[in-house]
């Protein structure tokens, strides 16, 4: 019987090592439809807008409001962006977050920031295209 048992255990080891149990996780995102030309865009109070710009080297630039923005920089650690989001959310009612990714940012940064949105339970956020003004602001800060 010994050879048979040997074989059985060999097979057992092989299948145990090759099996992967964890199925991949997914994040569901729903993007807005493309606006039609005759659609009326809703107007938003700029005080409620928080802009996050994902930059090179896992940096996040953020500012509040739209006119006269004061750009600040933070990172993806728990004391970084999460703190910013939570404090800002406590100060602002119905905060709207705009996520903009610079060309140098990585896909990981986008997933991480969406993850932060889930963790901090932000309800209203949108991924939008980065504007030239934002690029200028980031450039100025680096200088």
């Amino acid at each position, binding site marked *: *019987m010994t050879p*048979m*048992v040997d074989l*059985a*255990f060999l*097979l*057992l080891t092989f*299948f*145990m090592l*090759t*099996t*992967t149990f*964890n*199925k*991949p*996780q*997914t*994040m*569901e*995102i*729903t*993007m*807005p*439809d*493309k606006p039609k030309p005759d659609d009326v865009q809703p107007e938003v109070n700029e005080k409620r807008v928080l802009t996050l710009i*994902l930059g090179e080297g896992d940096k996040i630039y953020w500012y509040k409001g739209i006119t006269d923005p004061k750009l600040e920089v933070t990172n993806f650690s*728990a004391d970084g962006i*999460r703190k910013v989001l939570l404090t800002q959310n406590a100060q602002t009612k119905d905060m709207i977050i705009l996520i903009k*990714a*610079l*060309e*140098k*940012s*990585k*896909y*990981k*940064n*986008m*997933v*991480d920031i*969406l*993850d932060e949105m*889930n*963790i*901090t339970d932000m309800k209203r956020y949108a*991924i939008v295209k980065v504007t030239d003004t934002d690029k200028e602001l980031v450039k100025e800060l680096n200088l």
Partner: protein
Amino acid sequence: MGKVKVHRSSPSLDMTPMVDLAFLLVTFFMLTTKFAPEEPVSVDMPSSVSVIKLPEVDILTISISKDGVVFFNMDGKYNRQELLGKMGTEYNIPFSDEEKERFSVLPSFGLDIRNLKEFLALGPDERKKVKQNGIPTDSLNNQLAKWVVFSRTTNPKLRIAIKGDRDSNYPVVEDVINTLIDNRVTRFNLITNMEKGPAQLN
């Protein structure tokens, strides 16, 4: 005084229950193992705290490698054959039944449709040597859009998942997402690895 007689027979152990168990486990692992098809590139996914599991069937996967090469994959053998037929008509490349058969068992691929015919003619070992340049996603020649549209007409239940490498540049992903939105796919999944959620918030 008589000598104490020592029994010198080898102790025998009943191995049957152990063997039973071993075979039970072998059967279990044999049945649960699903061999992952060999991918042309390895994609190192970012991690997230999301706990939604990816469904196993009706999945269209768009993989993005570290160098920004876009790969396409869809499940369902017959759906794939139908899809290739539709794509062939769209691009005026007639595919034979044998080519469709070969296509239906292909893993992810990242090729221009005009090079697909040659690729399908190759053997499995030769295919590995081919450098795949990715499915064109630029606005002039957006083949990815066509693949997505025809996949969805072939299988309306299809869910679309993006499997991006953590270090791929965001603009490539953005192109893919914009392609999806342009084709009225506004709901899709991002495949990620598991990560433990932060303790202080949960």
